[in-house]
């Protein structure tokens, strides 16, 4: 039944009806009516961030750790433009967000009014969809549709731009019918084609060197997809590797797990991808960090690709069997079809392949030379993992070397425990994302594994963590360099460290204290375990300044212009000679 209320009240009611419990936002002139309606509302908690980019990343962390839609509320003009980085991040990593932006009154649109910007124009290409609502009677429908579009199909961010006069105007509110918004043109395909699934299983039954290459789509699809993946892996006995985004969908403590693949993936994962005769891509998108040189990518394999987004198929790599559908339903169907076709194990047929994989594993590509005097960053992540692995722990990261070390040395057995900026590679993602995760999981241990350069991009959100009593732990691997930039300069630019060294860093311990949190510094490997224990025991947000080896490089590494089987291992003597001149000119 239609009900009369103001636009601002419609917004709040629509949020409630779509299950929103937390908003990450920042008020301003053009959203004041909504903040006023929020003030008079019970049941929705607003988290006041310190910068709108922080709101978007916090909402991403919240969404990715819960599977729910994240909600961002910001004002017009700078509020909207500051949110753009987070929206783009959510688009590339397929994170469901609804971002409500205030806009100047409809009569002023186009007049260069105070804090006016063309929000729908600016965000058109960095959202899954966006709306400008000029009539209050469209508002409820648009908001319901925004949640539907953001959370279904391949998830993504949706912007709803609401002029201030629409927020004041009286209009009709209508609940969406059972939440199932029937859309005229937007109808994601979730069921895979059964003939294609059957053909895929037939290939899997004949494969001698198969590999599952899984991605963030499995995590996004939900817990059932992860269960079906585990079931299918157990049934087939195939090895499993995953992209950065998919970590946790398959348990790292399972013997079929090869570790992460890609530019800084393990030797066994990348070599298995290169040498396999059947690649089963489930919810990954053949990103360039994964494929390396495309013409050298897995040259002798048949390729199956399961993806909910038809445009992902044959975009970068041409595949033999495309299956458009939701990972959960396709995996479930694969398990069913496999069972109808065989009930015998393929262990014997796969023996030579597993023997080969064991040989690659014995290379121990994640090994590093430890030290008694200086903390190696890999060692720091390993000790952190050992200290927290039996707890209810969530990890976020910034972007760079520390992110790769975290992906390599912290192990995930469950999905939705790992929040990182994969597609866009947004430095400054981790701290606000940790804030969002902690809001959703108050009693969990939430750690941002950070670099000292990235974390300063959104450091102000420490203030948010203190305000809401969110005891996030910011574990900084401090090498005083933008480590990944420094590594590429060392390997590709003759060691000319142009602008990658931070001459002046804050005292992170004092900084933590200034914010009202706790600061810990550790530079001695022998004291590291005690210092980590102290961090975990604290009820406050903690900045842990872990002073690590300044010039450690992140290996293994597939350099620019190389294929998977040209991976550089940590103890390779002369790294410079492996990268050719053509590789050096690439980004």
């Amino acid at each position: 039944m239609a009900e009369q209320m103001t636009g601002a009240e419609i917004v709040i009611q629509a949020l409630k009806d779509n299950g929103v419990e937390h908003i990450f936002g920042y008020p301003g002139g053009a959203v004041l009516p909504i903040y006023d309606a929020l003030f008079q509302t019970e049941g929705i908690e607003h988290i006041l961030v310190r910068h709108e980019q922080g709101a978007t990343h916090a909402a991403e962390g919240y969404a990715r750790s819960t599977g729910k839609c994240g909600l961002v509320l910001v004002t017009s003009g700078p509020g909207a433009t500051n949110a753009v980085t987070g929206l783009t991040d959510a688009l590339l990593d397929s994170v469901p967000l609804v971002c409500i932006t205030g806009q100047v009154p409809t009569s002023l649109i186009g007049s260069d009014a105070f804090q006016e910007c063309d929000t729908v124009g600016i965000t058109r290409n960095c959202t899954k969809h966006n709306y400008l609502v000029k009539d209050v009677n469209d508002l409820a429908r648009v908001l319901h549709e925004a949640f539907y579009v953001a959370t279904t199909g391949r998830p993504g961010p949706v912007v709803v731009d609401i002029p201030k006069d629409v927020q004041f105007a009286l209009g009709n509110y209508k609940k969406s019918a059972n939440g199932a918004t029937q859309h005229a043109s937007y109808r994601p395909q979730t069921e895979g084609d059964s003939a294609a699934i059957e053909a895929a299983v037939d290939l899997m039954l004949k494969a001698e060197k198969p590999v599952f290459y899984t991605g963030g789509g499995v995590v996004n699809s939900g817990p059932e997809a992860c269960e079906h993946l585990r079931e299918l892996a157990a049934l087939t006995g195939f090895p499993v590797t995953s992209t950065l985004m998919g970590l946790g969908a398959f348990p790292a403590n399972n013997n079929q797990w090869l570790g992460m693949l890609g530019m800084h993936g393990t030797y066994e994962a990348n070599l298995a991808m290169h040498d396999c005769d059947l690649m089963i891509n489930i919810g990954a998108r053949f990103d360039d960090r994964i494929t390396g040189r495309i013409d050298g990518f897995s040259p002798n394999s048949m390729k199956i690709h399961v993806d909910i987004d038809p445009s992902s198929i044959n975009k970068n790599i041409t595949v033999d069997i495309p299956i458009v559908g939701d990972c959960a339903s396709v995996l479930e169907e694969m398990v069913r079809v496999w069972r109808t076709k065989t009930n015998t194990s393929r262990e014997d047929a796969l023996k030579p392949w597993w023997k080969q994989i064991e040989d690659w594993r014995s290379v121990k590509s994640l090994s590093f030379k430890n030290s008694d005097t200086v903390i190696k960053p890999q060692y720091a992540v390993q000790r952190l993992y050992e200290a927290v692995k039996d707890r209810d722990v969530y990890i976020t990261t910034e972007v760079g070397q520390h992110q790769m070390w975290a992906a390599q040395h912290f192990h995930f057995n469950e999905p939705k425990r790992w929040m990182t900026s994969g597609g866009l590679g947004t430095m400054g993602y981790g701290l606000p994302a940790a804030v969002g995760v902690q809001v959703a999981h108050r009693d969990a241990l939430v750690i941002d594994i950070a670099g000292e350069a990235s974390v300063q991009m959104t450091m102000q959100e420490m203030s948010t963590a203190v305000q809401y009593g969110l005891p996030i732990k910011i574990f900084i691997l401090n090498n005083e360099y933008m480590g990944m930039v420094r590594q590429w300069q060392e390997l590709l630019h003759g060691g000319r460290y142009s602008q990658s060294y931070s001459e002046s860093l804050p005292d992170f311990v004092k900084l933590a204290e200034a914010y009202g949190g706790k600061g810990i510094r550790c530079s001695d490997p022998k004291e590291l375990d005690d210092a980590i224990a102290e961090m975990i025991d604290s009820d406050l947000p903690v900045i842990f300044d872990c002073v690590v080896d300044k010039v450690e490089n992140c290996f293994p590494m597939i350099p620019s212009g190389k294929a998977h089987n040209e991976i550089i291992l940590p103890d390779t003597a002369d790294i410079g000679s492996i990268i050719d001149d053509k590789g050096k000119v690439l980004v």
Partner: protein
Amino acid sequence: MNAKFQPTGSAYFIVPDTQNPEQHILSVIVDNEPGILARIAGLFSGRGYNIDSLTVSETEHEKHLSRITIAVTATPKMHMQIRMQLDRLVPVHRVLDLTAEGNGLERELALVKVAGKGENRVETLRLAEAFRAQVVDATTDSFVFEITGKSSKIEQFITLMQPLGLVEVVRTGRTAISRGPEGM
């Protein structure tokens, strides 16, 4: 290093498309809502596709549906990707590659202004008749012709008018429909 492994300026070597680019005509049914054209144009510019020609108009008023006809030059693999990317947009109902379907019928309209006197004027009219161009405006020293047809025919007519006193041309861009009884 093999010549086909040229760096592309991205993070990795990407094999250049060896397929030849060809022009296709796409027919796209969309919701006629504000910003829809910017959404389509933004998709093309953002992903580096080239629009050769684009026409748009509302075709079903009660449903607020528009039909957009886009001529685009790309390799066959890219044509597939362009269709998928268009289909992914929320307000897009349907995308049809008329060229790939092989049953497209296309037309374009142009208004052509030619000024001249004497023998040129007679020749202009004679050619216009041969091309079935209509005179829609005339003065003692000028004509405006309306001509419809395939783009190649219009192209040819314009070339012929050049020496006879061509002043200016406006073209609608190509619009297309499938042959036979089936609708989109």
